């Protein structure tokens, strides 16, 4: 079951390399991710029944946390590729991209997704590292797809900062390996598997693990966009084509957090709870507080959305850092709801960009609702959700985190988190009220993208609405189980 999840996107990439019809490529991609989503649901059931699923002599290893990530990656990739078909047809017609570049997108996106699947399914920590590097490399080309000066600049910053971060993470990975080697004398270790390391966590060299976690935190933290290593994030998110922005923000950041969490679990098992959780909490809070003012003053729609992602990533890390069962549960739930919300915002931004040919909020001006009523409907719903208003799930998950924090006696920290959330809430609402209502400056925009992306946005918003009011019991059990893995058994 784990092998097909990896092979299907790779096979799709190969197929797309061979076929010429763009329409066909535009259908093959979503089809592949629909299949992986179905496989993810099967995996969910397996994991609930057996706790852990392994394949190929434990090379692939999936527990509840991996299964949860598989579902998120599939859902976001499905939405993004579904949206991409129409989006690129419009770009092609406008002459912004060439047919070759569109093909590049449909070949590299499944590779990008396959890399993410490998990150969450690999048992070997070294394999996890190179899978993450593979996701970075495939997405860099996607960020540079438009070949504008600004997108090249964004891609360059992304690849240099990303590679530096991953080099640090590799140092951390090597140190983790070394921590086990030195205790066992000059013997080849049986494996570099996470499950094996968890079993021997008590015997690892404590000092070495401490050093390793710092390196891994800064390294994978760069890829996850944690402040102050986040500077590539707004650039890459704003310059990439919208479907890629959606994937970067919707899951790629969370996959990096997943890698970080694996080391966090290992470090906690080895050193006790105090060390890694404090670091996560610090970086998380800092990211949240840094994001809020940037959202308030931002003049570019997609950059504002990118900073909002930074804020959500910060919240997830801070919630894990609070380290109570309730907050960790909230963090995982938040990952899921955010993965359904943020892509919709980027799709809507894509439609606005293709209609107004700019991302500058001032130029877009008021009255988008008159020009793009359907897009604004989805944008509004997703924005309300992303700012954490009821009845959407993000409200519930944020409330879970806060109540968990207050209940555990972390009053000051919970209060800080609440402040940052309110600030970001004001920022996003203020910015969107500037452009959405009112009368447009130009009476009529020719060739507005009125009905574009409705299937993709409808799918994700529909999912968000359903899961906001009703989370199926197996899914709930899965998240509980995953929270148990992160927080240790209660």
């Amino acid at each position, binding site marked *: 079951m784990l092998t097909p999840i990896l092979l299907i996107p790779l096979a799709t990439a190969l197929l797309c390399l061979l076929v010429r019809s763009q329409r066909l490529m535009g259908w093959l991609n979503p089809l592949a991710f629909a299949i992986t989503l179905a496989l993810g649901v099967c995996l969910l059931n397996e994991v609930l029944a057996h706790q852990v699923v392994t394949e190929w002599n434990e090379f692939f290893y999936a527990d509840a946390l991996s299964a949860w990530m598989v579902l998120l990656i599939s859902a976001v990739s499905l939405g993004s590729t579904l949206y991409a078909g129409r989006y690129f047809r419009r770009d092609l017609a406008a002459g912004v991209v060439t047919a070759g570049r569109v093909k590049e997108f449909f070949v590299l996106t499944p590779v990008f997704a396959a890399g993410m699947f490998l990150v969450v399914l690999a048992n070997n920590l070294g394999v996890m590292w190179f899978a993450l590097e593979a996701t970075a490399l495939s997405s860099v080309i996607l960020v540079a797809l438009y070949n*504008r000066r600004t997108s090249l600049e964004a891609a360059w910053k992304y690849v240099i900062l990303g590679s530096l971060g991953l080099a640090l993470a590799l140092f951390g990975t090597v140190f983790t390996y070394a921590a086990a080697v030195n205790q066992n*004398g*000059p013997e080849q270790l049986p494996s570099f598997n996470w499950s094996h390391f968890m079993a021997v966590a008590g015997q690892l060299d404590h000092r070495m693990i401490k050093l390793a976690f710092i390196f891994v935190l800064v390294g994978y933290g760069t890829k996850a966009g944690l402040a102050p290593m986040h500077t590539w994030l707004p*650039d890459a998110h704003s310059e990439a084509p919208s479907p890629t922005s959606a994937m970067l923000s919707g899951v790629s950041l969370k996959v990096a957090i997943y890698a970080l969490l694996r080391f966090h679990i290992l470090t906690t098992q080895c050193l006790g709870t105090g060390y890694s959780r404090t670091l996560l909490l610090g970086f998380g809070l800092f990211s949240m507080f840094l994001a809020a003012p940037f959202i308030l003053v931002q003049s570019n729609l997609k950059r504002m959305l990118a900073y909002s992602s930074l804020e959500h990533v910060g919240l997830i890390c801070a919630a894990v850092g609070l380290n109570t069962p309730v907050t960790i549960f909230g963090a995982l739930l938040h990952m899921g709801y955010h993965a359904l919300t943020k892509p919709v915002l980027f799709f809507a931004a894509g439609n606005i960009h293709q209609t107004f040919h700019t991302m500058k909020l001032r130029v877009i001006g008021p009255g988008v609702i008159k020009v793009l009523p359907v897009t604004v409907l989805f944008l509004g719903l997703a924005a309300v959700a992303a700012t954490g208003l009821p009845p959407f799930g993000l409200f519930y998950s944020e409330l879970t985190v806060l109540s968990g924090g207050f209940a555990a006696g972390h009053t000051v920290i919970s209060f800080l988190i609440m402040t940052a959330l309110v600030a970001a809430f004001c920022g996003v609402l203020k910015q969107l009220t500037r452009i959405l209502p009112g009368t447009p400056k130009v009476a009529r925009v020719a060739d507005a993208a009125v009905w574009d992306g409705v299937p993709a946005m409808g799918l994700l918003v529909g999912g968000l609405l359903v899961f906001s009011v009703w989370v199926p019991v197996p899914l709930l059990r899965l998240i509980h189980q995953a929270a148990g893995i992160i927080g240790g058994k209660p």
Partner: protein
Amino acid sequence: MIMNPSAPTPIGSQIIMLFAALMLVLQLLLVVQKMLLTNIRLYALQSLMLTVIAAVIAWYYNATHVYIVAVLTLVGKVIFLPWLLNRLVRRIKIVEEIEPLINAPTSMLICGGLTLLGYIVARPFTTLDKLGNNTLAIAIALLLTGFFLMINRRKAISQVLALLTIENGVMLAAVALTSYGMPLVVELGIFFDVMVAVMVLGILVYRIRESFASMDTSKLTQLKG
């Protein structure tokens, strides 16, 4: 895989130490050297030192997979990557020298300080034997000076070189610190990732050169805030 549980003899660990130190020396030369093509050659030489270290370790421990790592390093980083970078430099016809932001003597002093810092970080690891302790210090020093090299250079290709020297530092840590090296699958994965990374970077450098008519990364300043 046949294992020989004895540690390297004093001569063996001295050879490893010597070549690790040479890697650091080459790194410092990279910091002060201004000609791009010479920089690429220095990097190739540094990778050659890494190959020798891997080979020595493989010989002492009689570990087949470390031999494979040595061969891969030789083929990939001593021959293929420098060739690729050379070709790229010729193709985009760069004639200018690198203009570092900080002059050579000051850079040298800073790098000396960074090396010292590497030794300070590695100092508490007393559980490691002397070999491990020294190579850990050199690996961290390579990392820090690599960072400095990256900040100090504005040409896109020399930033790629800085990244590659950092990666050499990681590989030094990986072969020397863990005595048998990492599992083969990991080493292979890292190796191919580095190759692909350089190709991706090469494509980007080429495109940046095309649309900016320069590869000075200090011109990449349009995205802010």
